[in-house]
C-alpha cells in the first residue's frame, strides 16, 4: 500500500506509542485522584503539556487538552463568541474553513450571531481587503485557518492578526494542517486561539489541544469537573497526552528537514503529473503552501472515481468532493476559488508524509495516468460523445 493521504491522518510513531504504553498499562490512575498513584498520572499530563508548550512557544497554562481538532475549533469559536456576546454578535470567517469551523458558525447563526464568510482569491488565499472591509463595531471574532486542508494553501495569518489586534477582535486559527509541518512556534502567528491535533502529526487519535492566549475570555462548552482549569471538563487522556507530546517533539525536531524533503517530492510529483496527464491543473500552486499537499483537477472525470481507481491499485488518496445525497456540492474550497462545479468534481488531494519515497511518487503518477485515461474513455464529457 502507498499511503498518500497524510492530511487525513498519519500513522502513530512507534516512539510515541512506546511513551504511551506505561500509561495504558501500569500507570492508569486518574490525574484528579488525591493519592500518589493519581499524582503520577497528573505529573505525566503536566509534563506533556509543558513539552508541547515549548514547541508551540507558549506557557503550559495556555494549552487546553481536548479530544479532537473539531472539538478545539468548537471550543474556540463557540467559547469566544459566547464570552464576547455582550460586546457584539458578528463573526468573520472564510469560505474555505474546515466544516468544524463552518458548521459551528452556521449553528451560531441560528443562535442570533451574524457571520461573514470572507471570499478567497482564485489561488486560494483569503481576500484580505474583503475581510478587512467587513470588520464592524459588532465584530467580536475572526476565525481563519492557518493552511487549508484540501489545497495546503497558507493563509496570511500575521496580517490578519495585526488587523484583529488593531480592532480589538479575537482571532482563532485552525492550525491542524500546519502543526508539526512548519518549523514555526504556532503562538508566533499572533492568534489568540490555535487548534491543533495529535493524529495529524504522527501522534494518537483522540487528543488535540487549543492554545488560549493568557487572559483571553473563553466560555467552556463541555461542563462538568474542574479538569483543564475548568475550561474542558472530563477525565484527561493521560496516555494520549504523553503520545501527543512525544509526537510534537519529534515533528518539530524534523520539521525543517522533512519539510524540504517533502516539498521536493511534492514538486516532482506535480511536474510528473502535469507532463503525464493532459487536461490537468494544480490548484493553489502559485500560493505559499504547506510542503506536503497537492490538489489536482482532472478534466472530464469525477474525483471519487479516481480515488477508487487508485485504491484498486493500492494507493490511498482522497478527494474533497463527495457525490452523495444531501451533499451535492463539490468541494466548497475549490468552488470558493472560482473553479466551476464540474471541474471541482474532478479534484484529487495527495498529501505526502514520512513514509513517502521517490518510488512512491513515480508509482502514483503511473497509477494516475492509467486511471485517468480509463475514466476518460468512460466519460460522457469531452471527447467525441454525441450530444445531438
Amino acid at each position, binding site marked *: *500500500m502507498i499511503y498518500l493521504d497524510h492530511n487525513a491522518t498519519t500513522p502513530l510513531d512507534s516512539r510515541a506509542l512506546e511513551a504511551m504504553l506505561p500509561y495504558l498499562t501500569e500507570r492508569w490512575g486518574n490525574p484528579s485522584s488525591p493519592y500518589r498513584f493519581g499524582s503520577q498520572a497528573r505529573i505525566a499530563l503536566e509534563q506533556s503539556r509543558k513539552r508541547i508548550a515549548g514547541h508551540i512557544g507558549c506557557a503550559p497554562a495556555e494549552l487546553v487538552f481536548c479530544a479532537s481538532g473539531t472539538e478545539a475549533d468548537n471550543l474556540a469559536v463557540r467559547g469566544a463568541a459566547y464570552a464576547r456576546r455582550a460586546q457584539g454578535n458578528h463573526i468573520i470567517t472564510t469560505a474555505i474553513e474546515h466544516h468544524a469551523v463552518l458548521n459551528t458558525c452556521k449553528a451560531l447563526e441560528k443562535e442570533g450571531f451574524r457571520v461573514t464568510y470572507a471570499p478567497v482569491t482564485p489561488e486560494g488565499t483569503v481576500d484580505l481587503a474583503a475581510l478587512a472591509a467587513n470588520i464592524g463595531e459588532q465584530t467580536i471574532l475572526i476565525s481563519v485557518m492557518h493552511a487549508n486542508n484540501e489545497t495546503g494553501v497558507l493563509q496570511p495569518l500575521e496580517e490578519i492578526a495585526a488587523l484583529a489586534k488593531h480592532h480589538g477582535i479575537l482571532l482563532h486559527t485552525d492550525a491542524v494542517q500546519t502543526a508539526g509541518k512548519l518549523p514555526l512556534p504556532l503562538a508566533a502567528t499572533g492568534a489568540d486561539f490555535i487548534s491543533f491535533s495529535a493524529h495529524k502529526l504522527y501522534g494518537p487519535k483522540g487528543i488535540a489541544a487549543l492554545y488560549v492566549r493568557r487572559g483571553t475570555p473563553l466560555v467552556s462548552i463541555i461542563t462538568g469537573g474542574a479538569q483543564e482549569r475548568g475550561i474542558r471538563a472530563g477525565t484527561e487522556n493521560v496516555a494520549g497526552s504523553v503520545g501527543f507530546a512525544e509526537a510534537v517533539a519529534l515533528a518539530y525536531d524534523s520539521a525543517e528537514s522533512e519539510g524540504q524533503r517533502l516539498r521536493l517530492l511534492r514538486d516532482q510529483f506535480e511536474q510528473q503529473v502535469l507532463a503525464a496527464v493532459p487536461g490537468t491543473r494544480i490548484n493553489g500552486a502559485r500560493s505559499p503552501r504547506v510542503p506536503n499537499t497537492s490538489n489536482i483537477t482532472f478534466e*472530464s*472525470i*469525477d474525483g*471519487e*472515481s479516481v480515488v*477508487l*481507481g487508485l*485504491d*484498486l*491499485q*493500492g494507493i490511498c488518496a482522497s478527494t474533497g468532493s463527495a*457525490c*452523495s*445525497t*444531501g*451533499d*451535492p456540492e*463539490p468541494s466548497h474550497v475549490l468552488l470558493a476559488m472560482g473553479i466551476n*462545479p*464540474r471541474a471541482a*468534481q474532478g479534484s484529487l488531494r495527495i498529501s505526502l508524509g514520512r513514509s513517502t519515497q521517490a518510488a512512491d511518487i513515480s508509482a502514483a503518477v503511473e497509477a494516475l495516468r492509467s*486511471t485517468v485515461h*480509463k475514466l476518460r*474513455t*468512460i*466519460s*460522457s*464529457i469531452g471527447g*467525441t*460523445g*454525441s*450530444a*445531438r
Partner: protein
Amino acid sequence: MANANNDIDLDLDFLPGPVLFYNEIVIDHFSNPRNVGELADEETDGFGLVGDPMCGDQMKLWIAVRNNHIARIAFKSFGCPGAIATSSMLTALAEGKSVEDARLITDDDVVTALGGIPENKRHCSLLGVRALQAALEDWERRQQGKEPR
C-alpha cells in the same frame, strides 16, 4: 484493475445497518464496465442524455432496436463509482430485452443486481434508468411514420 489492497482484510458482512462500501460486484462493474462506448449515428435508434442534478453526474445512452428488442446498447457516464457501476449494470440488464420489458427496469432492479450499493449512492441508480427511458422515448418518436426495421 485487480485489487492490490489484498493485505487489507475487510469483513464487510460484519457491519450492521445500511451498506457503507462498494461490494465486489459494484467494483467489477466500475473496473470493467459493460457496453462502454457509443453507437454510430446510422445504427442508433434511440439516444438519451440525462444529468443528475443531485451530484452533477451525466450519462449518455445509445440503443439499437431490432424486432422490438434492444439489440445493442452503449453508454458513457461522467460520475462517481456508483454512477459508473449502475450505468454499466443497467445496460447489462437492458441488453436483449424487449422494449416493453426494458421500460419496466427500475432503480431497485439495478441496485439488486449489483448486490446492494451504499445508501448515499442509491440516487446514482436512477441515472441509468432515466437515460434508458429517454432513449426509449427517442426511439418511439423516431418510429412515428416509419416502418419498423
